[in-house]
């Protein structure tokens, strides 16, 4: 039977994606490792590589299709020696099984539908004790049966409880044998991410809002707008991710901001000197210098380089600095890993490469996931000061305002200096005011006396 090529999940949070384009066509011979398609995920465009070898028999999902569910069959691959007849077989097994003989049902059709009958027909639809597994990563599956490790399993009771509770089973991890989703998993999920459909069995107290913000749940209709006065831009993966993550963070993380003014003149001087003397192609930006200064400050104040968990505060040993990069349709935060170990030239060239690929949406998930701290700089857009939302699970994010000439008092006399205001937003569960302040007071001299950051 033909091999099914499935829509891959390129990140753990991905539920669906856009199949941007095919790089092969029906009839093409492919080898394992060949790039066969491009897929747009939450945050990036990724290339899909073939896992198996063979000939593309049929493309089932056209290039440019949006909302393709992870694990949907997107194409069929013919193995050596197989001809088109193998396609039919594969397709019919992909489509839903016809319900078994409905003799029993026929007999009872006189009576109005009883709950038992409802459950009976449900029993038939759900003949297979399986639901698609979003965690599946390989693009082309060579699994023979459909019930190998490529599918999540759930007990009938778990499925029914999830259905009644309005819970998407594919978002759960099963704790039963072989990862089977069982009653306790659904109960736990319903408990901490209570579904909105409040039934009378639900606990009387109002439960907290769903853990996962679902932007789709606010309808356009609910805005009561006049027809013709607006246009709706569909949510792409990135927008959904931003909506979900920012909502969750703003709701769950106790935010507070700390402001400080920092003088920039000497940093600007040093920067021009560096760039004058730097070899061809190296051009250090203010932002690159901020990244290094932040990394050093984080290492000097280790309690500030931390994440909150219920099991304990996680203190990071390295400063992985995420930098918000605005791109078409949203933003993304590529990460400079172990930034404290990297010199300005290295940071600069790495940042350039990351930002460029971010704009093309070509970052790999590991390049934009897992920072320990973030910087967001809106200075170039003239913003004086602002307070960002924490990028979970990081404990702090620094918002950088514009550098501008301001009157300042120096040695009891009025003077002019280039100043910028930075705002540190902290997650109070892990970073207290004094810790945030300690971080800022480590950061300020690194910027105001920038040769120290070269050490």
């Amino acid at each position, binding site marked *: 039977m033909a091999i099914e090529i499935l829509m891959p999940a390129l990140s753990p949070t991905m539920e669906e994606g856009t199949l941007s384009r095919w790089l092969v066509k029906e009839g093409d011979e492919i080898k394992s490792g060949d790039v066969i398609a491009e897929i747009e995920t939450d945050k990036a465009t990724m290339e899909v590589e073939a896992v198996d070898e063979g000939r593309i028999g049929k493309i089932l999902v056209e290039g440019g299709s949006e909302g393709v569910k992870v694990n949907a069959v997107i194409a069929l691959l013919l193995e050596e020696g197989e001809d088109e007849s193998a396609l039919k077989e594969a397709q019919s097994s992909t489509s839903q099984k016809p319900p078994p003989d409905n003799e029993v049902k026929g007999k009872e059709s006189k009576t109005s539908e009883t709950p038992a009958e409802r*459950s009976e027909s449900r029993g038939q639809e759900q003949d297979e004790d399986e639901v698609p597994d979003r965690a599946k990563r390989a693009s082309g599956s060579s699994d023979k049966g459909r019930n190998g490790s490529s599918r999540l399993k759930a007990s009938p009771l778990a499925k*029914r409880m999830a259905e009644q509770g309005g819970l998407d089973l594919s978002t759960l991890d099963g704790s039963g044998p072989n990862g089977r989703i069982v009653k306790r998993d659904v109960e736990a999920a319903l408990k901490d991410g209570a579904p909105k459909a409040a039934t009378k069995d639900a606990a009387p107290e109002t439960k907290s809002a769903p853990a996962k913000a679902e932007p789709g749940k606010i309808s356009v209709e609910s805005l009561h707008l006049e027809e013709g006065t607006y246009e709706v831009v569909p949510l792409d993966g990135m927008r959904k991710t931003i909506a979900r993550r920012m909502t969750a963070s703003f709701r769950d993380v106790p935010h507070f901001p700390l402001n400080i003014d920092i003088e920039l003149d000497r940093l600007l001087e040093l920067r021009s000197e560096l760039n004058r003397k730097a070899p061809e192609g190296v051009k250090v930006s203010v932002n690159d210098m901020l990244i290094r200064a932040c990394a050093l400050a984080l290492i000097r104040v280790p309690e500030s380089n931390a994440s909150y968990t219920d099991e304990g505060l996680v203190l990071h040993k390295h400063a992985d600095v995420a930098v918000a990069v605005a791109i078409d349709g949203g933003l993304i935060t590529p990460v400079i890993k172990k930034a404290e170990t990297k010199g300005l030239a290295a940071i600069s060239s790495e940042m350039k490469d990351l930002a460029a690929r971010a704009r093309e949406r070509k970052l790999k998930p590991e390049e934009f996931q897992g920072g320990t701290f973030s910087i967001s700089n809106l200075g170039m857009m003239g913003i004086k000061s602002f307070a960002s939302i924490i990028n979970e699970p990081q404990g702090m994010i620094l918002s950088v305002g514009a550098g501008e000439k301001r009157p300042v008092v120096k040695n009891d006399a009025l003077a002019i200096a280039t100043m910028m205001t930075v705002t540190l937003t902290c997650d109070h569960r892990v970073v207290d005011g004094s810790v945030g302040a300690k971080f800022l007071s480590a950061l300020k001299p690194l910027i105001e006396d920038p040769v120290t950051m070269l050490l």
Partner: protein
Amino acid sequence: MASENFDLIVIGGGPGGYVAAIRASQLGLKTAVVEREHLGGICLNWGCIPTKALLRTSDIYHLFQRAEEFGLKADNVRFDIEAIVKRSRKVAGRLSGGVGHLLKKNKVTVIDGEAKLEKGSQAPKVVVKGKDGESATYEAKHVILATGARARTIPAAGLEPDGKTIWTYKEAMVPETMPASILVIGSGAIGMEFASFYSTLGAKVTVVEMVDRILPAEDEEISQHAKKAFEKQGLKILTKAQVEKLETTKSGAKATIKVDGKSEAVEVEKVILAIGITGNVENLGLEELGVKIERGHVVADGYGATGVPGLYAIGDVTGAPWLAHKASHEGVICVEKIAGQDVHPMNKSNIPGCTYCHPQIASVGLTEAKAKEAGHEVRVGRFPFVGNGKAIALGEDQGLIKTVFDKKTGELLGAHMIGAEVTELIQGYVVARQLETTEAELMHTVFAHPTLSEMMHESVLDAYGRALHY
């Protein structure tokens, strides 16, 4: 004295202990079992198995008495109590020996003697006093307590065995003669099994139960059914009754029983105490180690952990339900957890309970009353044995299979059965519960015809108003 180190030492060779040891050995742990009396514990030697052997005799005897009904002629059927007991002991002995072989095959070291615990480093040290009176100390990374339990007695109320007239299950299992009359105090599984055995063999049996029904752990409807069936067999059942005084007389015992505020005297030849179980927690050094003990049982979590580093407890010594399969399964979970496997505590409402009296009783999960108490809206299905072809062919048309479903989710909350062979049937529902099937899957399961198991299907159908044969 000699000292040897193990990964795991299990104290007690009952179904909890020996199964834990075998599983541990399978997982590559160097394991020893300490047993002071005989491998197989209460279950194989003085519990489950020998009683089932006795009840087999009484079942056959009962059938002989009904011979004519089946077209047979069997006049003058008699029994030989000595031979009955001998067979029961032989069965027990054979199985106990089997456990020895199993342990050997699995390379588990068996240490004969009585164990006591002392403070150790990683886990408590195990000091074993051998039959010869010599002590040896053993150390292990983990120690599992599986010392089991014994019959509860209440000396203050005279509820104390004397081994001659007032028995516990031990003496009741090895009678020398057939008593003419017996008083059974307590109507749980153990009490009812002995009541059934002796009554079938002709003794005049009276059962006293403190609460308002016999087999109080079972669904009320099942208790009612059982009461009727037993009374029909000639048992006298006193509920809401309390033994106020129990004294031995020349010919037996005299009990003063208070029923409904009135005291009545009952004179019998023998008394069987079946008023509960208490854990073997004494003389083990548990107090010194700070092991928490509540109401005669060791407190342990779902994985057997006692809170004392390296010390675990499983089986009867940890409390209800006092069942061999519960002990064994706790042993497996505890050992797998120790070995770092991904396990979950047992779901206690998936432990089946069986009573092998005549008629048999079996159940799993919540009773109807308990389900309602827990806040479930329920759907209840019932199917009587009279509606089942196989039951009628067997001449066993008395009984009931009851199922309780959650109205909303279709979860099978509980199943309760009384009648022939139900102890063998219950496992079907246990599997269903473990796999979390709903009524839908059960309805679509094909049951062989003709079998008693068809009643399990019908009971489910009945819960949804769809029973086909009744």
